[in-house]
């Protein structure tokens, strides 16, 4: 359905008050809209600045890419034998080895990082932390927290993925192992 609109002109060519009212209505919505958009932008910018964390490698962190004490997010390969957990105090510490942020075969990268004695390593400490079931050798740990003066990384949160989550890169080994036993 077509809507037909018209504007009544006065004799001297000025728009009538009705036209002005419409214009004012539009202006009102535009101002209201701008205020709302502005408020959301302020909310987003302040939230971003307050919650921003750099996601860096262990190598970068240890080379001073971010100042000591600044909250960052890091990723590393868990070295299983370094895990120390006291269930009575919920103190958890472990060592993570450097892995690149982007790698085509993460399972392989984790495996190599754990075996490489020259890979940069970082001791992580977490207080009041229930030991996650996935915390094991060669798991990928994604940690938020900060590096402190004592050289330890004080973790606030930890996200873990065990190697099996990166796809079944070498399933054949298991099958061949059983076959060769026969």
């Amino acid at each position, binding site marked *: *359905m077509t*809507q037909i609109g018209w504007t009544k002109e006065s004799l001297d060519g000025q728009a009538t008050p009705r036209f002005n009212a*419409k214009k004012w*209505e539009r202006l*009102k*919505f535009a101002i*209201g809209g701008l205020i*709302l958009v502005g408020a*959301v932008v302020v*909310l*987003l910018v*302040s*939230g*971003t600045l*307050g*919650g*921003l*964390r*750099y*996601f*860096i490698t262990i190598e970068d962190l240890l080379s001073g890419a971010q100042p000591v004490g600044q909250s960052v*997010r890091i*990723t590393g390969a868990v070295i299983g034998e370094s895990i120390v957990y006291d*269930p*009575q105090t*919920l103190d958890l510490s472990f060592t993570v080895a450097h892995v690149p*942020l982007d790698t*085509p075969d*993460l399972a392989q990268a984790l495996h190599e990082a754990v075996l490489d004695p020259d890979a940069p390593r970082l001791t992580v400490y977490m207080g009041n932390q*229930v*030991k996650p*079931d*996935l915390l*094991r050798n060669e*798991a990928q740990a*994604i940690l*938020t927290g900060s590096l402190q003066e004592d050289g330890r990384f004080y973790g606030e*949160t930890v*996200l*873990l*993925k*065990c*190697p*099996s*989550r*990166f*796809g*079944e890169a070498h*399933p*054949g*080994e*298991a*099958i*061949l*192992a*059983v*076959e060769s036993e*026969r």
Partner: protein
Amino acid sequence: MLAEIGFIATWLAIAVALYGIVASAIGYYRRLPAWTVSARNAVYIVFGALSIAIGALLIGLITENYHIAYIWTVSNPNMPMFYRMTALWGSQAGSLLFWCWLMSAFSALSVALNWRTNNRLMPHVILFQLTLTAFFTLLLVAIENPFARYWVAGEEVLQAALQPAGAVAPAMTALSESAKGLNPLLRHFGMAIHPPLLYLGFVGFLVPCAFAFAALATGDLSIQWIKASRRWTLTAWIFLGLGLVLGGRWAYDVLGWGGYWGWDPVENAAFLPWLIGTAYLHSIMIQEKRGMFKTWNMALMVATFSAVIFGTFATRSGLVESVHSFARSDIGFPMFALWFSVTLTLIGLIIWRRAAGGLRDDHPMTSFLSREGLFLLNNFVFLALFIAIFWGSFGAPITSELFFDTKITLGAEYFLGVTSPLFLALFILMGIAPLSGWGASALRRMGTGLLIPSTLTLLTLFGFILMGHTKAPTLIGYGLVALAGWVAVYETYRAVRARQTHLKENPVAALIALARRNPRRYGGYLIHVGVAVIGIGIIGSTAYQRETQATLSVGGELSLDGYTLRYEQFEGGQIAEDGRIMDIAVVGVYRDGQHLATLRPRRDFFPQQQDMNTMTIAAAHSTLENDIYVLLLDWDEISQTSATFKVYINPLINLVWWGALILIAGTAIGLYPTVTAEVVTRRVSDVPNAFAKGRA
């Protein structure tokens, strides 16, 4: 044989879908109805072929056909039948096949139900649905083939659908002995039904988006595409909502951190289409009533479906680091290309139709406080939430990497800080919008309508204060959420009272009659109540969670918030049906000396799993007031006389799950067909005849 059947059926589905795309285009543009009929039949055949394919994989899982690589990866002989069946969607390839099958099922059902009533839109609906189905199915067979088998060639194990030259199939015994089994984290009832519900929600949005595409392509921009797709949208919306809630329940039960929502990118990716879909469901009411927001509604539908594809891409490509994401896969680039091209095409069509005047509104906006004004504000807040969550989950990390050569992430504090005021704004709008009128502001009416709900809200707040919930910010939150709920309850009550007064109906009959006459309004009110209940649960469980931990000897006790937990005994080495070994602590829960429950937190060990072989299973005593959530952290392996526990008290958490049930009930009412004026007239006119028959 099963692998071959599934493989051939999948290729057949692709071939027929491609044919259907061509046939539907010829049918429409050459005005040859026989071709459109043929395209419709292609939709049914695609559904049939994919049903055979998924049936083959399911039978393979049930009959333990470990030659199929997917089955070897996600199941093993020790798994119970239930989990063997749910392993169908336990990993990338199977879940992608399930996704394709659902797409074909939704397509077939929507075509069958709309063939007569919306025949003009059908060719393009079919074209859109088959294009998407063909794309995903092609992706399935080309990159993530669930029917690939293991073959041994010398010292190498290969994965291929067809037997490579010189390769032989490995012995079934070798396969069954080495089969990995489903990830223990996924062996939970919530996880068994959470993915299908999410997929039903995601895929369900294919239908309304296909109708939107058909409307744009044909130029039939009347209200018809919305009417035809409203129920599909609502169905997809509730499935997605339930999927999200069940995902939260799974996290709460399985991940053992006492929470249910971690602002993880994959959780957020599923939440985004739900948010924008909710905005759409509100906004289309304005187009139906006032002929406004036509472009906006199109844009919202496109944004919803675009968010669905983006979320799928983000989850399945391994783009984001998340406990929920699949392994990194090659399907990332093709899916990104699909998302980009579908979104761009639909936006292009909207711009074209708008420029041609087809999406011009019938009425201008008159007041911010009119119902349409408040709905626009509601849409604005939903959009702001969408942008905030998208920015935090994907926008900021991707932008920083692309333009600043650095990676940044935004943590939970960003999401809590930015979304809390926006959610509260939504609850304010939920409270006042139902009291507004169409076309003009009705401040006086709003004021009167708020009087009783405000009084009830104050009483509710008093109840919370008595419970010890006295933090000022949470009381503001409780107040706004409760007000939104009470307005919905009171508006329903007023309508019931009116029927009681004028028609002398009893309250139940009046309520049923109201729901039948206007299911959308009263279903919507019930949905508002459900959302308010969920909101109260979220505020209570987030702000007033208590926790402690202690090492107890058998007979030892710990106290928290008026509850006493006594470590009764240890039951080590219990073997479950699926082969897991369970170490269980038996814990009694007491309040004021009265025994409330016996809990059995435990640690499960999966001997066959190589990587992820232990799982901490929490135990909880649930009431409407709170959950007492207990984790077994450690125990004395030798004497078994002492154990360490972590205990959480999560106030009001069960309102989150109960609110979801109310949400389902409200949606079910909203889906109920409206009793139209014509039907009512016919029924009323039948009454004298019935009397006449009776007299005769």
